[in-house]
């Protein structure tokens, strides 16, 4: 019985962790816009004055680590956003679809 309970708790725990690490994309988008990330990186993380972040954003841990201690011209975000919010941001960026191939975008083929 104890073994079963422990196993069940482990499953629940893993589920929670997975949910946390996956993050909430809707909230992530709000955080991304509200904190000015989109001003440099674009509302879809497509890049602009800042680097391109989406699609295929970095893993949450790497993103959080970089945001806390960035290099180059990226300013540091120490306590303006929580790790959970950054995880949400990562989740939002992961929802951004890849653009169509260039050959399928007529204005890019002139």
């Amino acid at each position, binding site marked *: 019985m104890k073994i079963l309970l422990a196993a069940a708790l482990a499953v629940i725990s893993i589920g929670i962790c997975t949910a946390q690490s996956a993050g909430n994309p809707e909230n992530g988008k709000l955080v991304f816009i509200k904190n000015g990330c989109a001003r440099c990186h674009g509302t879809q993380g*497509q890049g602009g*004055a800042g680097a391109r972040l989406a699609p295929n954003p970095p893993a949450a841990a790497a993103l959080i680590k970089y945001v806390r201690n960035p290099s180059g011209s990226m*300013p540091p975000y120490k306590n303006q956003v929580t790790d959970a919010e950054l995880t949400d941001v990562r989740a939002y960026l992961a929802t951004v679809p890849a653009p169509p191939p260039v050959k399928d975008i007529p204005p890019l083929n002139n």
Partner: protein
Amino acid sequence: MAKTSKISTGLSTGRRGFLKGAAAGAAALVGTSTAGAQQTGSQPRAAQPPSAAQRAVETGPPAAVEVQTTERPGSDYMVDVIKSLGIEYYAANPSSTLKSLHESLINYGGNQNPEFITCTHEEASVALANGYYKISGKLMLAGLHGTVGSQHAAMAVYNAYCDQAPVMVVMGNILDAGARRSYVDWLHSSQDVAAILREYTKWDDSPVSLSHFGESFVRAYKTAMTPPLMPVALVCDEPLQESPVPASFDRRIPKLPVISPPVADPNAIAQLAKMLVAAESPVLVASRCARTAAGLKSMVELAELLQAPVIDQHFRMNFPSRHALNFSDRARAAITNADLVLGLEVMDFYAVLHAYGRERDSNPRSILKSGAKVVTISALDLFTKSVYQNFQRFEDPDMALAADGEATLPFLIEEVKRQLTADRKRAVETRGAKYAQAWPKALEQARVDASYGWDASPISTSRLSMELWAQLKGEDWSLVNDTVFLQNWPLRLWDVNKHYQFIGGRGGEGLGYGPPAAVGAALANKKFGRLSVNIQGDGDFMYCPGAMWTAAHHKIPLLTVMHNNRAYNQEVMLVGRMASEHNRPVDRCTIGTTLVEPNIDYAKMAQGMGVNGEGPITDPKNLAPAIQRGIAAAKRGEPYLIDVVTQGR
């Protein structure tokens, strides 16, 4: 100069004018008297003895007669001088201190060569002249009203000064305190009005006679049009304009010489050619080198002769965007690989050659290879001032040729040709093949980069740029504003290969340039039937929106496409950076930096000034048809504005 006398109306006249006026006045008195007699009765009456007043007229000393006309004002001669130089336009907001010149231009001068271009702000007048020069290569006059107009214009003069763009400003003033009539005259006058602009003009003068005016005007023109090209200022004294041309004045107009720009010393050119031929990886960097078709051709010829990558810093059209040697997007790779870097009229060479770290980095590191040489050719070495720091950080060159870049290039090309041996030609061909192979990949990568966020709303700057290009590519077009806030997409992906297809932006990076400079450039393009296009930032637009009215009033075809990110986006980012660095909330950094609540309706603004406009467009699918409508309007000779809501950059 003959003495002039002031009379109570404020008009002045010389002796000849006085006598002529006195005769006219007497005739008027007689006429009045006769008319009066005819009205007093229908029956003939016996002669009456003269009244006391009539006796006084007949027997007393002649009365001082108020002369109210000056048929040959000094400003007519000023117009003769202006016309002698072939100046096509005079851009100005009307001015009381320039009213006589204004009247002479439109009546005596027939409002042709120059034609009066009505502006709604003196900053717009000068920016208009700045943009006009960069397309036409010609100097435009801008009229500034005394102290106030000159202060309004100051930013645009500084922009032109930093932009190596010649503009001549004519500054109204009343130097003679005795000639000032109201408190306004005092407020708008100065003992040295040109001092307002002196630190960022190449030359100025305050003529006190018409002969002095003629000489100084031609000198100012010559000075402005001799590299380094810069604005000049000429004070136009109000009494000098309004007083009659003295009878003794011969109305001579000094002739303008053929202007030969300064070319570098032949020995220095030979030495530089030797270095370029011997270099394994020479790189050319250009900011404002090519200003004509010939200059652009020379840039291409030198680059191809050496198979040297070119970094175009986009202050002019220095190099074709789709040339295999265009390394503007790969500048750092080119510089780190270079053993010789030649800077041609470069604005901030130090920044090209160094890597800056974080903000306020006072110790940037050189990215040059050990032993790499640096050479500059710049006319700015011939003229440096102290107060304003536009000369940038010292670039520490190995050799500096003080000369005009464009004028020196043909001589450098000939010398390189002379020194290229068969061995060196083979080496040049080898590196050229390498660059030619890399180019298609670089172009394809830029296209892939542009595809990200393609369907985003607000609309991406790449989508905006490429939807525009899709409609423009078959036209004879001219992009008449900067692209830096668009991530330079047009210069990365459009086929830009003519000197008039791109003219750079604000020389001093001061806002208020875009709309009027675009109108000036479009005015210059009009006679060639070119389609002028301005991708216009919203923050800059709000400084000088009145330029839209000028375009409508003068029927100047221009397609304005708003890059409306509803913010001073750079400042949103910068203030956000401060909040981050200070460990404080970033979400409040839209305070004072955004243009929302309410959103500005640029289409309505345009419509209010007689320019057809549409938008705001937020769905990228609506861009193409709007652009088609805009191009059709411009081709009909009309200005048109499309408001596009865009990403920050």
